[in-house]
């Protein structure tokens, strides 16, 4: 079972990146990478790292790739999909929505019936990681927070419109 999952996930992940190399549409590239990163999240789950898997899907496949998509939209505005493909997109969207709904229902059912799988090994769960981050890796942790502030300020300074009057 684990081997089957591993095979499917790694094939999808590597295939998506390979398709990105072949494709020339930037928006498709970003969406292919969302698929690749979501599959990587699944691989992380197979490695008994549920916290890293959740973070991978939420932050990487979610936040960072959305940032990329915004940048692509700002850089390269092309016409939308041709009208004959919209129907197919609608069907695909409906299918994905149904899958998401089914997943959510399964999760809710499991939450109420309380049938959880075996948790990660001792000290490997979110609590263990948090403990490490705030004890042994406290210094790097604080430095990363500084890095994030620097990145935020730097990005705002860079993206400022040129030729605007200084406030003050």
């Amino acid at each position, binding site marked *: 079972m684990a081997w089957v999952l591993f095979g499917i996930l790694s094939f999808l992940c590597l295939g998506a990146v390979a398709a*990105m190399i072949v494709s020339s549409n930037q928006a498709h590239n970003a969406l292919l990478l969302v698929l690749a990163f979501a599959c990587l999240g699944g691989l*992380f789950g197979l*490695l008994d790292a549920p916290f890293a898997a959740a973070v991978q899907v939420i932050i990487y496949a979610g936040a960072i790739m959305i940032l990329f998509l915004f940048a692509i939209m700002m*850089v390269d505005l092309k016409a939308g999909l041709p009208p004959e493909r919209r129907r197919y997109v609608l069907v695909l969207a409906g299918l994905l929505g149904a899958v998401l709904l089914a997943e959510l229902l399964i999760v809710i059912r499991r939450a109420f019936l309380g049938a959880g799988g075996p948790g990660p090994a001792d000290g490997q769960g979110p609590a263990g990681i948090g403990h490490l981050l705030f004890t042994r890796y406290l210094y790097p942790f604080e430095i990363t927070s500084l890095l994030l502030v620097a990145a935020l300020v730097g990005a705002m300074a860079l993206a400022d419109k040129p030729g605007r009057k200084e406030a003050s």
Partner: protein
Amino acid sequence: MIPAAAFLAVAATLFALGVLAFFVKRDLLTQFLAVEVMLNAANLAFLALAKASLKAEAQAMVIFVLTVAAAEAVVGLAIVLLVFRRRKTIRTEDLSGLKG
């Protein structure tokens, strides 16, 4: 039970594909995406070794890698947008101003 070597092989392939994409593609944004692929390959290797050695340290490293990747994406995309605003292009062939 899947051996760590299998995950490491996937990570290595992913990294190689990322390097390939970085050199094959000719626009800044996709090259940027290729860098993200490489970072993710490193994360996968970290977690594979974390499972093999039964230590949570590597998972903390993954969090750090993610943070650095997020900061890098923000600043990098701001620079790409700036380049696009000034030059109206992000194709690397057209950005040869630094060539000797």
